[in-house]
């Protein structure tokens, strides 16, 4: 399936959409297409948002968010987020806030088929004091066994989860290495999982190294082959951050006009993920490619 078809088939206006990765493996090929197809009224979900949510909020796709961090890390505050929250541009947004661990536990609850998860953070803070979206966002109980105070957070279900992974086979078994972030739980919490991968490989390659599979095919709805699909983020073993690109994004999004120019230059103008890669150019992509740092093969024999 192609990027365009995957988005038009699975992402309907009004759904709960989960992005992927924290600080790495962001599913930008799919997210750029969500913007191109002008999806609207989404509830956007994740633990750690950076440019992914800044783009989706700036493009007017998502007036509601449930999550925990919204900034550009070393590059500072998220400008589209601030404009939407502080000035209602391009539309007002509401966010239901938790912590990174809290969102992970909420996804995990949904992934395990449970209605809530207990957690020992959030207690005493204002994170649970304001609930602009959910009728009930958290509850403190006295543990029925020990009597200690425990915070309960409700399960967070998604309609569609995106994830960017290194590889999958034709059946849809998805393999990731490097940091997992909360991708297994976020995908497990979703009815539909769309995985964009660097490579679709022979089934044999996956089955000779099954410990690397984080999503078996039964949990995956569609696979999209998107080399450099996480650009300008990293994908372990494939490519590094594109630091000048991320600096450019942070700079251009300082003004609404600059962001609209970005959309024209890098989302609508190129028209597709292939067009985007063409615009980046082979030399730039080659310069980002990961160094070879192979581990020893392991013996799966018995």
């Amino acid at each position, binding site marked *: 399936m192609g990027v365009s078809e995957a988005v038009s088939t699975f992402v309907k206006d009004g759904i709960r959409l989960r992005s992927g990765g924290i600080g790495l493996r962001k599913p930008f090929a799919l997210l750029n297409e969500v913007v191109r197809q002008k999806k609207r009224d989404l509830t956007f979900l994740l633990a750690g948002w950076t440019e992914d949510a800044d783009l989706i909020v700036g493009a007017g796709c998502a007036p509601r968010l449930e999550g925990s*961090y919204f900034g550009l890390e070393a590059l500072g505050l998220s400008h589209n987020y601030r404009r939407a929250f502080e000035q209602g541009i391009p539309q007002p947004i509401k966010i239901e*806030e938790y912590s990174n661990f809290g969102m992970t536990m909420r996804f995990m609850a949904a992934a395990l088929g449970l209605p809530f998860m207990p957690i020992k953070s959030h207690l005493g803070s204002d994170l649970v004091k304001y609930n602009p979206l959910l009728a009930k966002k958290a509850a403190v109980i006295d543990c029925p066994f020990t009597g200690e105070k425990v915070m309960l957070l409700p399960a967070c279900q998604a309609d569609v989860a995106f994830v960017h992974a290194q590889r999958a086979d034709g059946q849809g078994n998805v393999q990731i290495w490097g940091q997992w972030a909360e991708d297994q739980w976020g995908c497990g919490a979703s009815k539909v999982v769309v995985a964009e991968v660097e490579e679709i490989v022979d089934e044999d390659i996956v089955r000779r190294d099954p410990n690397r599979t984080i999503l078996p095919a039964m949990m995956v709805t569609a696979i999209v082959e998107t080399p450099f699909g996480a650009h300008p983020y990293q994908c372990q073993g494939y490519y590094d951050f594109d630091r000048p690109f991320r600096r450019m994004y942070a700079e251009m999004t300082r003004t609404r006009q600059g962001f609209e120019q970005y959309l024209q230059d890098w989302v609508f103008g190129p028209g597709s993920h292939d067009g985007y890669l063409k615009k980046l150019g082979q030399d730039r992509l080659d310069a980002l490619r990961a160094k070879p740092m192979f581990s020893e093969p392991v013996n799966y024999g018995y």
Partner: protein
Amino acid sequence: MATDGKFSLQELMAVCAAREIRNDDVVFVGTGLPMLGSMLAKRTHAPDAVLVYESGVVDARPKRTPWSIGDGCLVPDSAMVAGLLEVFGLLLQRGRVSVGFLGAAQIDPYGNLNSSVIGEYYAAKVRLPGSGGGNDIGSLAHRTVIMMGQDKRKFVEKVDYITTPGFLAGPGAREAAGLPRGGPDAVISNLGVYRFDAQSKRIFLETYHPGVTLDQVKENVQWALAVAPYAAETKPPHADELRLLRDELDPDGIFLGGG
């Protein structure tokens, strides 16, 4: 800037961060200056300190300055790679993280932190990034070290929003809220280093940075600041520490400026 011309405030703050790390610590590292401070500690007095990163890396030994908590350079040469659940759950919530680093836009005298909104929650003047892992670290690490800029709008009598609990309303408040352990141990600002009184749980000044006067520190706090009777100037960085920071840990000036 308050320096003697031989080192910058960022460099001094990174060195102060390193000094908070002990050789037997398990450190929950954030991005920026705490990352540099942690790497500096490992290269100097705390080679056995274990650095953990929230995207899933345990005992990282990165060969370049990570740009992000999820930077792939943290993975090769680490002891274990998993995900958020393992680092926040198996390590932090279980009580295996001895020290965590935090940043914020506002702090109050009990070390409560705001990194969410300036102003009323539903009519925010400035919308900030929110908790990230901050609330979890402040709730669950055995001790925390806070690094932030200081002025009267940041060191406030009452924070606009408690993103991350310090000592909440004072003695006994963390326990009453159900938090299992922890609380702030030090605050490193661009003007000085602070500790918390064991009884009152309120902040006091321990050292002021070279070139900064005690009056300057007090002027940049909203409340009547307590000062340790032994308060003195912050010890400046060693030449070795500066060399490591500049030449090896942040040669491009990503976090020390100029990058």
